């Protein structure tokens, strides 16, 4: 049965697709929620910031009025306007992607080196903690996928050996009597394709169940919020391509190995 290794591979492939979507989504959310605070003596535009570092892709000026009002409350002889005039300019800078701590520190240094910049706050500690967790999760997932791939490859090789043993004699006899390769490997192709179809259907069913039945009703917030990432119908194309490629390659390898070489 080629079904078991194929199933293991397809579930691995689907996990990979799901995790890729989840990490991309998480990265996007982290990126959107992260900003660097810059205090500048002079007004600055997004172009000025882009010139400092290409990773800066958005700058939002922080309104000073509210800050001036708060300060004026504690002062007797100073008006809001006077405080407003004395305050520097505040900006929240957003980046094009979620960078490592070193990347953020590099940008901070570049901004600090610019004329008129008084202060830069990267909230490095918080950023670093989130980034490390993100990297750790990625590492755990990749280790899992690598292990699963290794086990699956091992299972495929074992199955090919079983095929080799079971069909060697028949294929060699057929070749002696002039059967072309496709006819010799026809039985294997039929078995492989049936197993591939079954594996695709089972994997699809598992992930459709997870997305439409399990995730909406479970108490895990992450799954409830990200159920749309659990399965997409275009995944069926990727699963089919993977399954059929593996089957065709395995059958061809067994057929070539069973070929009575012309000495």
């Amino acid at each position, binding site marked *: 049965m080629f079904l078991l290794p194929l199933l293991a591979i397809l579930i691995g492939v689907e996990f990979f697709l799901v995790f890729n979507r989840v990490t991309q989504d998480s990265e996007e959310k982290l990126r959107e929620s992260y900003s660097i605070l810059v205090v500048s003596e002079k007004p600055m535009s997004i172009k000025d910031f882009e010139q400092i570092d290409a990773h800066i892709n958005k700058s939002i000026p922080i309104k000073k009025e509210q800050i001036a009002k708060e300060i004026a409350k504690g002062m007797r002889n100073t008006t809001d306007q006077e405080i407003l005039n004395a305050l520097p300019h505040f900006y929240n800078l957003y980046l094009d992607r979620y960078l490592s701590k070193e990347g953020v520190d590099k940008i901070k240094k570049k901004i600090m080196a610019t004329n008129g910049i008084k202060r830069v706050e990267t909230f490095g500690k918080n950023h670093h903690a989130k980034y490390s967790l993100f990297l750790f999760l990625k590492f755990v997932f990749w280790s899992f996928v690598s292990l699963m791939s290794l086990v699956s490859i091992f299972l495929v090789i074992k199955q090919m050996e079983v095929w080799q043993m079971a069909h060697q004699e028949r294929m060699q*006899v057929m070749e002696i*009597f*002039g059967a072309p390769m496709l*006819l010799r490997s026809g039985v294997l192709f039929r078995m492989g394709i049936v197993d591939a179809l079954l594996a695709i259907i089972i994997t699809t069913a598992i992930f459709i169940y997870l997305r439409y039945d399990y995730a909406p009703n479970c108490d895990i917030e992450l799954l409830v919020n990200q159920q749309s990432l659990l399965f997409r119908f275009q995944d069926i194309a990727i699963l089919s391509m993977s399954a059929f490629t593996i089957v065709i390659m395995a059958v061809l390898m067994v057929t070539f190995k069973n070929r009575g070489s*012309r*000495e």
Partner: protein
Amino acid sequence: MGNIITASKMTLAYDNGRKEIIKSASFSIRKGEFVFITGPSGSGKSTLLKSFYGALAPKEGRLSVGGLDMTQISQKKLLELRTNMGIIFQDYKLINEWTVEKNVVLPLIIGGYGIDIQQTQAKKLLRHVKLSEQAERYPLELSGGEQQRVGVARALSKNPFLILADEPTGNLDDYSSNVIWDLLENACNQLGSTLVVVTHRIPTIFNLSYRHFIIENKGIYEVR
């Protein structure tokens, strides 16, 4: 009559040409002939037969089978040639997962013949080799003699122009051997096929009218 097999200064060798088995042999076999090739064990009888169905290409010289140059034959042409040959092996080489009937019609399956033709031919051949009752059984359920009769029926199923038999009675008792020899002789006479039999000794039931080659010291000589 034209030649079906022609060898000219042909050398056959294994191990990338290092181990020579047949050296500079020249002979020819004509259409419709029944030919015996004998020789002691390890003399190269099976190797010679292998070269006839293209499992071994000559190291030197020329070999032509059915008008095709076996030194330069493409894989496609080789498979085509084999579909028009009948080959019989000492160890039968039947497909054990297939029924007797399906084994018999293997050359017809390969040739893409319809199921009706396959069934008609299988019935005829199984009746001919007296195995009609065993059509739905599997090779391992049969005796050695019966398995070889299935092998003979398979070799005859597509009316081949050339039948190659490698020690066809090597594993059989005298009675079964005689049945096989009868079948082969009849096939040669009735179908007009060329029959090349490799065996360590010629059975006593045959008269000496058939051509006989002997392999000795890497050479092939005709016994007259």
